[in-house]
Structures are given as structure tokens and as C-alpha cells.
């Protein structure tokens, strides 16, 4: 389950930033996750509690800014929101598309003390 790798990546980023700021722990962490980022929110939340034990994130509040996916049709230029990677254009039914939004997987901000 790669959600554990993701959690470890987040912890690593948080630890570095907290140390650099000469602080000891994180109160709030804000993530940005797109619906096509390949991360199951439930799985991430499931591994989170165990993963953050004894780290700067142990007592942090986790806030997730979930981004819906958007694509631009390469045939008719319609911009549409998509639920699945294989959704087609609602106007012309084409599968040829450019994904504009939904691949985000970022630590947006940290509140450290």
C-alpha cells in the first residue's frame, strides 16, 4: 500500500521544515490531493495515526483540500470535470483530453510551534 510511502514522505517534509524553523511540533498540516493523484483518502487516514506516532506530526490536525479533476477536450476544447481517468467529453464523447487539474499531491502549509 503506497499510502504508507506517501505518509512517510509527508512526515519527512514536515520534520525538515519544523527543524529548520527551530520549532518542535506541527499543529496543523494542510494537504492538497487531487482525485486523480492515485491516493485513497481512506487508506491515507488509516495509516496516518500509526505513521505519525513519535514524529513532529503526532498531534497535528490533518486538513485535506480535495481537488476534483478537470480536463480539456482535445477535439472540441470543452472544459469538463471528470470523475474517472476514462471519462469522455460530455459534448463530443471524445477520450482525447488534456488533464488540467486533479493530479495534485502536495503539502500546502504547516502551522508549527
Amino acid at each position: 500500500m503506497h499510502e504508507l510511502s506517501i505518509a512517510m514522505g509527508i512526515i519527512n517534509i514536515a520534520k525538515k521544515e519544523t527543524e529548520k524553523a527551530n520549532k518542535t511540533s506541527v499543529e496543523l498540516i494542510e494537504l492538497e490531493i487531487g482525485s486523480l493523484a492515485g491516493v485513497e483518502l481512506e487508506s491515507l487516514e488509516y495509516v496516518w495515526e500509526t505513521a505519525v506516532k513519535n514524529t513532529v506530526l503526532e498531534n497535528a490536525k490533518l486538513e485535506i483540500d480535495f481537488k476534483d479533476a478537470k480536463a480539456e477536450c482535445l477535439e472540441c476544447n470543452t472544459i469538463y470535470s471528470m470523475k474517472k481517468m476514462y471519462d469522455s467529453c460530455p459534448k463530443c464523447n471524445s477520450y482525447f483530453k488534456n488533464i488540467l487539474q486533479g493530479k495534485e499531491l502536495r503539502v500546502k502549509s504547516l502551522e508549527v510551534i
Partner: protein
Amino acid sequence: MCGVCGCGTDGVSINKPHQHEENEHQHNHDHDHDHHHHHHGDKMIIDLERDILSKNNVEAARNRGYFEAKNIFTLNLVSSPGSGKTSILETTLKDLKEKFPFYVIEGDQQTLNDANRIDALNVPVIQVNTGKGCHLESDMIYDAVKQLKPKDDSILMIENVGNLVCPSMFDLGEQKRVVIISITEGEDKPIKYPDMFHSADICIINKIDLLPYLKFDLEALKKYALQVNHHLQFFEVSATTGQGMDTWYKWLETELERNKQKNS
């Protein structure tokens, strides 16, 4: 536990076939960055906007630079467990190893089994055991390549951990990604696991020798896969009988030549 790959206390080990499993877990965790700080009394807000996979992506870029400089054509083979990654490698190596210099990196959670199968063909191979990890990451490839020492102008085949989900997110620095699906898995896999098919360059459909025994709709599989990735190119093969393997070899040779032009 490694703070990045979350690979568990049993860690990652990188071994030549028949070698004792020694722990070779090195990671380079440094990078620099700019961002903004705001202070509110003792509290401080750090605006980061940092990509969580940035560490792996930076290391993948480093691998890619190395491969380009040495003109090593690198493929990342991904599939569910048992689709036939190692079998396809074995048949390919048997048929082409006199023609091109090959190197192989095998990724599995446990055992040296796959590396031993490649070693039996006298092709240089390194086994990466990921322990609890469900995919290969770029730093493991970096460490494995340091041991493997591939020659210039060679082909490096990386067999990822059998898993149709996680490896899709981790660039290894490969030139091309090959997704393998066998016809015993069902035609709707591409829409059930779209990320893997979305991120692949070509799709090898394996075990076609079993077509007469199964109700499998090849055209439906391709249709689903193209819905997820309209660039995908298909090769229908049987690693066991060798049927269709020549079309994949032809692709390999064409890409090898194209890669050489690009790197020279």
C-alpha cells in the same frame, strides 16, 4: 523505518543472486527550497506548496541523466503479480542476448527467485527486495545500478514489484514504461486500475496461447485501455510459446535506435 519510502523495519536489501542478504539501505535526503513564513506569536505558518513525491522525482531525474549520458535504454516493466514479467524477460533474453548487452534489476518484496531465473541465462542481474514496500523507488534503482555497473549502449530491464496500483506513481528514470496484462485477468483491468495504464507507453498482452480456453475479449481490453490512454500501443504475445514476441522485439530495436540518435 526509512522516513521516505516507509519500507518498514525489515528494510530494503539489494543483492546479487546467491549472495547473502546484506542491508544496503542508503538514501540521500537533502534538498533546498524557498518558501514563506508568517509569525503569529510563537506559532509560525509555513507556506510550502511542496510536491510529496518531489524526492523520488528528483532522484528519477538523476537516474535518467545517467542513463542518457551512457546511452542505456531503460524499461520499467509493471503488472499484477504473475502476469508474466519474468517469463517475458526470459524469452526476450534467450532470443536477443547475443545481439544486445542486457542488464536486469528485479524487484520483489521477498526472495531471490526472479534474479536466479535471470542469472541462469548468464545475464547480469541485481535483486532488490523491498520488504514491506509495494513498489520500487528511484533511490533503490540508483543503488542497484551502482552494483550492476551497466556498460554504455546497453539495455536495462527493470522488473517492478507485481502490483497494478502503487508502481504507477513512482518514476524510476526509465525511458519507457511497459505495462503487461495477461488474458486470465479480465478485460476491464484498464478501467479498474487506470493509473497504471495511463502512465504506460506500451501494453504487452501476454498468455495469448490460452485464448482458446478462455472467454476473453481482446478488442474490449484494448478499447478500455485506449479510453484511459489514447497513445497506448499493443503487443499480443505468449512468453511460453514465443508467439508474437517478434513484434515486441521489433519495437525494442526501433526504440533503441531512436534513443541512440537522441543521446548522441
